[in-house]
């Protein structure tokens, strides 16, 4: 039964744009590098090496543990934010997002400064840093779903005799496990392909597939072997995500049309809530204070010299470079997100295919992707290798899969009836798309935009891989300052990192504020 109002033609059109974009900027580079630089010998060499399977094993188990740790750290605050209305809720949610936005090099360095020596170069440090990064994924993805659950649904279960635990098992879990699986997949992906964190905090003895790809490609110059490893990584991720989806399979029920108003925090949860908020904020803030502290400490003295130097020299250029890259990536990314989402919600089998397809860029090794882009777009008008905006194109690939997850979740809450109403009132399918879907979903769109901008602001891997004329983006500048000689230079790196945190937080607050306005406009 097809609904004539929700005709799939728009979906097909959107799907083809998304597929084209992914083919040109993700698939083509991958094919190019494989065709040009991988010999059969590379495949057998890499696959028969014992070290390859050690890499696979380490990547897998540390990622699995990291996912669990992330859930442990994020669950209390997700419960708090997702189920309750209280003063400072938005602020707390913004706080949880900070970790996700920071360049991994910076966070890894901050953790190194924070943790006692005995934890340096341990798996525990790696897992803690991974949890730090991914709290936001859980809070945003699972929290968004939990928020849409009518609190009175669990009230109904309670009056029927279910204890809070039973409610969790029989009502809340079945209705949220889709989101949990989705958040777990994304977190697993990030941890499995972790690069900077594993290299800085794990020490040289520990390597994920991704960090080994970089070592092979740049340390040894073995591009063929590195590409084969990239495929091993892709296969590993596909396998694990498949398993997670299978585990979460079942009738995934979509949210109610109208998101209910969250109940205010009940008195007896007050202490717990304050404890959760404080613990989360401390966990997020501690590394940031370590950064700030190191930005004013030169040797054993305190000084603001680094900040002064920063403002005297390259800072403005880097800020501008980061800003324009993030804006272009944000604009292109949101457009792609909208198209991908239309395809996913309007098409049946095709929608599921696009849904899976949009995960691929996340699973692709940024190193391999970067190299692929460099050797693919290198002729005539298509020689984009040193263009600053080419970094933005790479960022759309890295960031838009996340935006898609945000949009799809919100989009599915639009009741079909609203489309019918608009159609009866004379709106054609374009008008309906704009008036019903996009206008109604403005908060979700802004959230997706904020996410993409933030990812672009903090992204390091692809930005460092692609060359650039003029100024470098802030994460790249930070990494470069960090690797140079001289206390003053390094202190500048920490100052710039602190500043990047501020920029990210401003971006975030802007997004949250515009969401708030959007809600007021709708009479909440």
């Amino acid at each position, binding site marked *: 039964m097809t609904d004539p109002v929700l005709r799939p033609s728009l979906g097909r059109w959107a799907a083809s744009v998304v597929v084209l974009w992914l083919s040109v900027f993700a698939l083509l580079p991958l094919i190019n590098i494989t065709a040009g630089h991988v010999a059969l010998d590379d495949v057998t060499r890499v696959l028969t090496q014992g070290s390859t399977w050690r890499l696979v094993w380490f990547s897998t188990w540390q990622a699995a543990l990291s996912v669990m740790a992330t859930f442990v750290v994020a669950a209390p605050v997700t419960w708090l934010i997702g189920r309750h209305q209280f003063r400072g809720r938005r602020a707390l949610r913004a706080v949880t997002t900070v970790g996700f936005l920071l360049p991994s090099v910076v966070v890894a360095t901050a953790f190194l400064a924070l943790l006692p020596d005995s934890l340096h170069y341990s798996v525990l440090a790696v897992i803690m840093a991974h949890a730090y990064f991914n709290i936001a994924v859980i809070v945003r993805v699972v929290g968004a779903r939990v928020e849409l659950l*009518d609190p*009175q*649904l669990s*009230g*109904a*279960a*309670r*009056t*029927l*005799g*279910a*204890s*809070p635990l*039973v*409610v969790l098992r*029989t*009502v809340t879990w*079945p*209705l949220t496990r889709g989101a949990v699986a989705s958040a777990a997949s994304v977190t697993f992906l990030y941890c499995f392909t972790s690069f900077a964190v594993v290299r800085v905090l794990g020490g040289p003895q520990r390597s994920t597939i991704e960090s080994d790809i970089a070592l092979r490609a740049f340390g040894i110059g073995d591009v063929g072997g590195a590409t084969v490893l990239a495929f091993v990584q892709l296969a590993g991720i596909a396998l694990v995500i498949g398993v997670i989806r299978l585990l979460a399979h079942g*009738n995934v*029920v979509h949210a*109610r049309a109208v998101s209910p108003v969250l109940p*205010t925090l*009940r*008195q*007896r949860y007050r202490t717990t809530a304050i404890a959760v908020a404080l613990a989360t904020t401390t966990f997020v803030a501690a590394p940031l204070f370590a950064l700030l502290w190191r930005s004013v400490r030169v040797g054993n003295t305190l000084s603001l010299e680094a900040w002064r130097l920063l403002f005297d020299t390259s800072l403005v250029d880097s800020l501008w470079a980061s800003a324009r890259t993030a804006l272009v990536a944000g604009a292109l990314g949101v457009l792609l997100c909208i198209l991908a989402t239309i395809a996913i919600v309007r098409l049946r089998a095709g929608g599921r295919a696009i849904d899976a397809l949009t995960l691929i860029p996340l699973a692709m090794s940024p190193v391999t992707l970067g190299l692929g882009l460099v050797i693919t777009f290198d002729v005539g008008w298509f020689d984009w290798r040193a263009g600053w905006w080419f970094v933005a194109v790479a960022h759309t690939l890295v960031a838009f899969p996340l935006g898609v997850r945000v949009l799809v979740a919100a989009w599915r809450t639009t009741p079909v009836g609203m489309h019918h109403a608009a159609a009866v009132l004379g709106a054609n399918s374009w008008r309906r798309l704009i008036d019903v879907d996009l206008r109604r979903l403005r908060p979700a769109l802004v959230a997706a935009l904020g996410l993409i901008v933030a990812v672009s602001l903090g992204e390091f891997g692809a930005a460092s891989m692609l060359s650039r004329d003029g100024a470098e983006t802030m994460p790249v500048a930070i990494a470069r300052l960090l690797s140079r000689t001289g206390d003053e230079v390094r202190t500048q790196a920490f100052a710039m990192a602190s500043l990047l945190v501020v920029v990210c937080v401003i971006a975030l607050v802007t997004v949250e504020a515009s969401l708030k306005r959007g809600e007021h406009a709708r009479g909440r």
Partner: protein
Amino acid sequence: MLEVVDLTVKRGTRRVLDGVSLSVQPGERLAVHGPSGCGKTTLLYAIAGLVDIERGAIRISDRDVTTTPAHQRDIGLVFQDNQLFPHFDVADNVSYSLRVRGMAKRERRNVAEEWLSRFGLTGLAHRRVTELSGGEAKRVALARTMAGKPRVVLLDEPLTGLDDHLHEQLLADIRSVFDRLGTTVVHVTHDRAEGAALCHRSMDLAPLG
């Protein structure tokens, strides 16, 4: 059977209920009237244990349940918007309270069938709840509440929004079930005729401030 004494509920700093008292005898059905916004729903939620109360006491069969968690109060609540579980079919919704008490699946299905037939829902056991009509959904919600045999049943505007014909029919069905089982009921409605038709006695909840 049910006794509410001096019940006060605050939302933020605003009082939504101020010193409400009522008492219902076993088997008695009490209608609570009042304009919208006077706290009728809040009263039911407070009795059921779904909102924190500021002051006052709630007793069921002379037992103080003021601090008892909702799932141990043995009070049934039929929500105005039903709150059916979207991930269960009709039979699983109806038998949910039995599942919570650990009844085996097969037995549970039998009890569910029984309740479905009492509410005229035979044959709908495997229907998804999202595919029910308004009247059917309300019947499922009632059956779900009754299946757990609560000592007191709270009804929140159970017949609002149904057309006249359905309204009459459902009212008759509910009354016959309640009469047969001798259910103790608190029935919140803005419709005095409806209250009079279903209940033995009525009271008014005055609007605040």
